[in-house]
């Protein structure tokens, strides 16, 4: 099988590098943690990778808006190389702080092939504070997003203070119409959260938790799929185990939906 190489960008206060690399490894990829400066000074070459991941964390402390300074550095030093990477058919994934960076770079929403304009923002949670909780997500089956193929629902944790997706009404409508809305916060039964806290943990417009570009190859989301890299990550796992034990089923479940989401990306690149 062809090797799929994943570049996990690290440094400057980003902090989900180990588990993101690990989860991609579980998804069958060869994942590499690479410092932003190694990419800038040429020690690592973007062209050698098929998937680029902007990870969670607090780049530059998130002091001037989450993901803002990371985006400045990326735009300043990598600029068009990022756009070319996308143009070559490769994948870009932004998780949490990485999603915030993607919208600030302008790689999302990428309307009409414009990968520079900032038209979506992720702002302070409506509840007024940082929040760590698991959320239920409903996947838009009509989205072109390559990462969510075959997945209809997912539980992941959110861990952010600035995750409230906001954009002008016209932008939201366009995202919706083009099925660029990939994930929405939902109730446990999959019905819309409809803005209700804490199901929608941050007050995101339209319960939007993740969006992609029109190609479906650039994907950003606030929840953390990499934090569901093992069945024991799920908050209900000890309860599920009791059900399994009593029904005589084996206790070791298969792949988590977190790994599956990443694997979709890896499989896509392997086939490409």
């Amino acid at each position, binding site marked *: 099988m062809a090797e799929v190489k994943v570049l996990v960008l690290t440094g400057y206060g980003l902090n989900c590098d180990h588990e993101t690399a690990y989860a991609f490894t579980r998804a069958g990829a060869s994942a590499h943690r690479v410092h932003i*400066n190694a990419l800038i000074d040429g020690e690592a070459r973007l062209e050698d990778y098929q998937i680029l991941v902007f990870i969670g964390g607090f780049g530059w402390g998130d002091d001037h808006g989450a993901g803002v300074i990371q985006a400045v550095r990326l735009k300043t030093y990598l600029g068009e190389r990022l756009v070319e990477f996308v143009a070559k058919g490769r994948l870009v994934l932004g998780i949490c702080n990485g999603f915030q960076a993607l919208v600030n770079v302008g790689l999302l929403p990428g309307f009409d092939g414009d990968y520079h304009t900032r038209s979506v923002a992720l702002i302070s949670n409506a*509840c007024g504070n940082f929040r760590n909780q698991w959320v239920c997500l409903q996947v838009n089956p009509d989205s072109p997003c390559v990462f969510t193929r075959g997945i209809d629902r997912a539980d992941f*944790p959110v861990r952010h203070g600035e995750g409230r997706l*906001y954009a002008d009404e016209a932008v939201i409508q366009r995202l919706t119409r083009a099925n660029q809305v990939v994930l929405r916060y939902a109730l446990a039964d999959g019905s819309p959260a409809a803005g209700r806290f804490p199901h929608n943990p941050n007050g995101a417009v339209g319960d939007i938790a993740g969006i992609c570009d029109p190609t479906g190859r650039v994907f950003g989301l606030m929840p953390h799929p990499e934090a569901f890299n093992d069945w024991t990550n799920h908050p209900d796992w000890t309860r599920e185990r009791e059900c399994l034990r009593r029904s005589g089923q084996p206790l070791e479940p298969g792949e988590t939906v977190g790994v599956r989401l990443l694997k979709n990306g890896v499989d896509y690149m392997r086939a490409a």
Partner: protein
Amino acid sequence: MAARLEISLKEHLVDPEGEGIRKKAKAYFGIETSRIRTVHILTIDAALSAPQLAAVQTGIFTNPVTQLSSYQPLAIVADWVIWVGYRPGVRDNPGATAVEAIEDLLGIRLGAGEAVYTSRRYAVSGSGLTRVQIEAIGGELLANEIIQQWRVYSREEWDPAAGIGIVIPRVRLDHTAAVAHIPCDSDEVLSRISRERNLALNPNDIPVIRAYFSDPRVRASRAALGLSDPTDVELEYVSQARSDHCNHNTFRGLFRYRDLATGTSEIVDNLFKTCIEAPTLELAQRKPWVVSVLWDNAGAGRLDDDTYYVITGETHNSPSNMEAYGGAITGIVGVYRDPLGTGKGSKLVMGGWGFCVGHRDYVGPLKPRLHPRRLLDGVIEGVRDGGNKSGIPTAFGQVLFHPGYMGKCLVFVTAVGIMPARIQGRPAEEKRTHPGDLVVMCGGRVGKDGIHGVTASSEVFSEHTPAGHVQIGDPYTQKKMHDFLLEARDEGLIQYITDNGGGGLSSSVGESARFSNGAEVDLARVPLKYEGLDPWEIWVSESQERMTVAIRAEDAERFMALSRRHAVESTVIGRYTDSGKLHLTHAGKTCAWVDMDFLASGFPQWEFDAEWTPPERRGRLEPVLSPPADVGRLLADMLARPNICSTEWITRQYDHEVQGTSVIKPLVGADRDVASDAAVLRPVLGSRRGLAFAQALLPAYSAIDAYAMTACGIDEAVRRVLAVGGDLDHIGGVDNFCWPNIQYHPAANPDGKFKAAQLVRACWALKDICLAYGIPLLSGKDSMYVDGHLAGRYGETHKVSAPETMQFAAISVVPDIGRCTSMDVKEPGDLVYVIGVTRNELGGSEYYAHHGYVGLNVPQVRAAEFIPAYRALGRAVEAGIAASIHGVYRGGLGVHLALAAMGGNRGIRADLRRVPAEGAARVDTLLFSESPGRLIVTVAPAGRSEFESLFQGLACARIGEVTAEPVLQATGLDGRTLVSAAVSDLKAAWKRPFGDLV
């Protein structure tokens, strides 16, 4: 020419920060405002051109989707304006990252002295708001004068063109660095200088210091370098090293312990050696998993053959008491440097927290510097930002309210890390400096921050305590350094590493130089935040986010290259020698020349009188109280007590899942809202081995006997880790003592001898219980002056002392995380068991406190009785037959049955007549006694015989079953229904006190 950029959210967007302030103004002070908008201000004190200013405005600091900005004051309609900015020299983290971003975008470097300063302007609207009200919001909600300056403008006073003006809080010292030579011709002179310079030298140490500097041989060797009398650098060095904080003089003291009831007395020589070191060394012999204890920044245990874990605990009480946010963030970021500086360096994998504060709704006459509510808000946020921005899961913690913490709050922070067992084939836990190795300082720069922090925390907090030791931690700078140093470690570049915490370089270089037996440091090479620091200040400054590293000269090039890659500042400031001397220079001149062994010998031991009066002799009695009739209401009220109720709002602010290692979270259950007994994580992704971690503290028991406080705290921590699947044969402990002053003084500390006896007894309990359970103390900490003097109603002050407190942290290895168990009951029909005996042990209980009593019968730990039950529980866990396990802690069986039911959103039907009990034939005793050694376990009916056979002959009884109908029902001793309460009502009561907080 400075420019001031104002940034705010577009008008139509809700401002969550402003809304948060509005809510607090209403809830805390009853002040009604109609609207508060926040304006973020960047004062750019740098020579930027107009196009450059425009570029950073649009390119960095303004989000076109959501924000407006202007170099002129933004026109925001308001009745009042409050402006808050930092004082000069206070760490401004956003200001520093703004500089980085500007430099990046413009491709320039700002010049020396150029900087960006952040501040905030709040535009407040509301009808009839008065200046007094606005000043309350400004002074008691938004700004703390210790670190911030603030101003209020009425609508009339506000000049829309000038705004706040240009405020540049740049540090200007206008001081030329100099070394002072201090005459010490007599003890009196040295005492006076110690007072004047705030050295806090112990009077007993002064003759020893004088003798050293008067020794003809010492003087001769100093004369060769042009030195005679000691320099200020040297005296500051000695002062730091001899402080109680660094040297643990109290724990190493001599105690004359007398029991006033029996008249017996004994000498206890050195609590540290007898109660901590000796038992830990003994246990380390028996426990092959103990890797490294009692010498390094953190103790180490074996997770598996390839990986060690390290753990340590700290407190940051005095600074948090003055500036809650700054103190707490500095505390947690600071404790994270301890594992980083353990062995050749450890990766941080988990943090824990513990806050002890006055009651949140305190309305009495005492005036603490910060109201407990504000203080708690601040410490919560400090740990939040410090932990979250470090990328380390904050996985477990607790808050405890008690009026005694109004004098000084407690902020406990615990850190866990991991290291590979070997680095480039060499043991990772070992480190040493060698002659010729370079002394490198990494991370932040040095300013006046925290000077005399160590000596201040060794003193009772008074109005004269210097405020300058309050700092604001910078997790961003430290995270970069953490990532860098671990890469350097893996390349084998690190010979020795330690952090700069208390005492700064004086401590880190002083201690690391013991291995090589000497060091030379040029203090002029130390990078400074601003000019004008004296050499002694450079030497003892506690500026944060710094590590001291020893590297071989041949590794310097690679080390520095890696440092640059990670955007971390590293500077060679000297080299290690084997000269036997600590040799410091500044501007080419020697400013300190001290024998390495001077601090290790000859200083007198501290001495204390300790007098124990047993509780019954102090008038402690059991209250005369009949059993209650309305048990349902009582239980709901117990659940709503501040030390029992839900504190979910704190836990949710803390990222407890970063690193993807979470196995048992701090909140569990069907609704994920009930506190777990402990946290479990799998620190090595891909391995099935886990670490279980919990903490406990029971200061209420100190009102009766600190021995019981300590013993029960340890037992609780042990049960907590066992409940989630920990292994009794592998539990490491961290003791963290916070004690009021124990030095007797007839007027100032009349009960000092009693508090000293309490300390001795607590240490005895520590030794006894740790030996009984086989718990080596992997790390520990003591903070000895938890007292404050609070202003009262009439201009008088009251001394308020904290209850004698020891927080105990337990860490255990879980062989297979697949066996971990949570506390929530699972399926209807499951059998409910209680393990352990309930006794008449209500003394110091939450139940008595609810009625305003203390009582006498404080709970006792019976280790020999408990251990077989803990072993049986371990076998049940291994067999996978425990569906849920939950310890019985504060509040007793009634409270904890309710919590287990609430966790599962199920009911429990229980018969109190079946509860294993001795001398506890009353329903209130059965429901609320806090006897240790007990757990609640639920088991599927299919597992009944296996479970019961494991507990054959032990105190364990099936008291009922889990029901589908979510009702907690208990049958009383008369066979009639004693209580029947809807679990949802109980949960509502339990969430009521803090349920509205986010």
